[in-house]
């Protein structure tokens, strides 16, 4: 894997546009500052797991059954 490099302002501007953000210059500066803090964190995320390793959130269809107003269950 190549060494990650910080996104440039131009790249952040493109990502922001693709995400649907239309920010004032002041708020764009805030985004640049925020992303400078987030980016190293994203690089630190551990990857390379077995393909079958599941995420922590598990879908349980029983959770979405209608609730009986009488019994509350």
């Amino acid at each position: 894997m190549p060494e990650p490099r910080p996104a440039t302002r131009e790249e952040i501007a493109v990502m922001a546009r693709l995400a649907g953000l239309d920010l004032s210059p002041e708020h764009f500066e805030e985004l640049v500052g925020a992303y400078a803090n987030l980016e190293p964190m994203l690089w630190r995320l551990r990857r390379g797991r077995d393909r079958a390793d599941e995420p922590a959130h598990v879908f349980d269809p029983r959770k979405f059954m209608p609730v009986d107003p009488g019994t509350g269950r």
Partner: protein
Amino acid sequence: MTSAVQPGSDAEAILDRGVRKIGHMLRAREVSASEIARACLARIRRHDGHLNSFITVTEERALARAAQADAELARGVDRGPFHGIPYALKDNVDTAGILSSSHSRIFADRVPAEDAEVARRLAEAGGVLVGKTATFEFAIGGPAWDLPWPPARNPWNRDYLPGGSSSGSGAAVGAGFVPGAVGTDTGGSVRWPAAMCGVAGLKPTYGRVSRRGIHPNTYSLDHAGPLTRTVEDCALMLGAMAGHDPRDPGSIDVPVEDYAAALTGDVRGLRIGLVRHWYASDGHPEVVDAVDAAVAVLRSLGAAVEEIVLDPLQDYVDAKTTLSVSELYAVHEADLKTRPGEFGRHLRTRVIGGALIRAEDYIQAQRWRTELVTRAMAHFRRFDLLVTAGWLAPADPADPDGADFFRKRLLVTMPFSLTGMPALVVPCGLSSGGLPLSLQIGGRPFDEARVLRAGDAYQRATAWHHARPVLP
């Protein structure tokens, strides 16, 4: 407000005795719920102008509810340990007919039609709501000086912050305005203010207390829990809050124990894993000394304590923050796109980066969560409880230009957030500057009873929970 209650009056003194003792006195007709409610309101009126712990004080409703509690007791209707007990709710908890602003300009006029489930349960248990407390904006963006309400201050020294995001709940309990308050906790937001304000704060197991009607922060990490003066009060308040809610998809149907009955004072034979490296390497020296001393107390009471090593704090913080920023952005996307200037700067800068996090990063963080949780839970083969610091430093100064502590300090509360374990913070000392220091006790999922038992045993052997701030 009008009240006949005088400073230092009998009713105010009774207010400091805790939920169980107030309950005994109510049932013995030595004091009325109305007198207790008026004592709370008097204290709030006298001191909260310096602490900003409340956004809304519900005086009329509180007095009416207290009168109802008195009338019920008079005709033999007793709703249990929380009957007639005053409490506060964090302002991100919906309350029917009462402003529920989440401390944000976005919701500055929002009055819900329905109570959150936790508010409904506390009312059903006979509690007397006296008001809604300050928070970081939407439980993430603070402390902030650019919102419609000022940030809460620390009752031990108003030049310092009370932690957050349940900042007003911590300050209100620490100041003795109410015996208990509800906070919400995604990465430490019950436990941090509890630690900074010298009170007990419990993040129950994920799924133990309903989140329905509480404004979401991070769906996969959100909890609600009690802040109280003592662990015994925490047990009593949790008993009133907990229980399965089929309308909350995160709620888990596990029977609610009698938490107060579990407080035997006995920790002999309990096996405790001490996660010392989490606080020894990055903790303030006074925190290290205070937590080491607290662990020695648990040892002296007969607990078997052994030092263990878990994954580094940074790993938990990175996984949690990736999940939170992504989910927070999903929650606030519409408003961040259409009216970003109406949020405070702290919320914008903490959340807007979520727009740029890829779905792949979110999934990888969830997979990493699985790994971290599995490794942490494995320690419960050998141990009943995990113990570490409640927070790594005393309270921060209330400085609008101060460094962002989310970036300057690792959050020792986050491992318990990510794992969903119950975790209790109790005061275990005061810094040389007179600010509270704290111990954190975590346990197996849904083993709140044992966590509370250890915290209560510690409080029976020590006096830190009796320390009171001198209010401005």
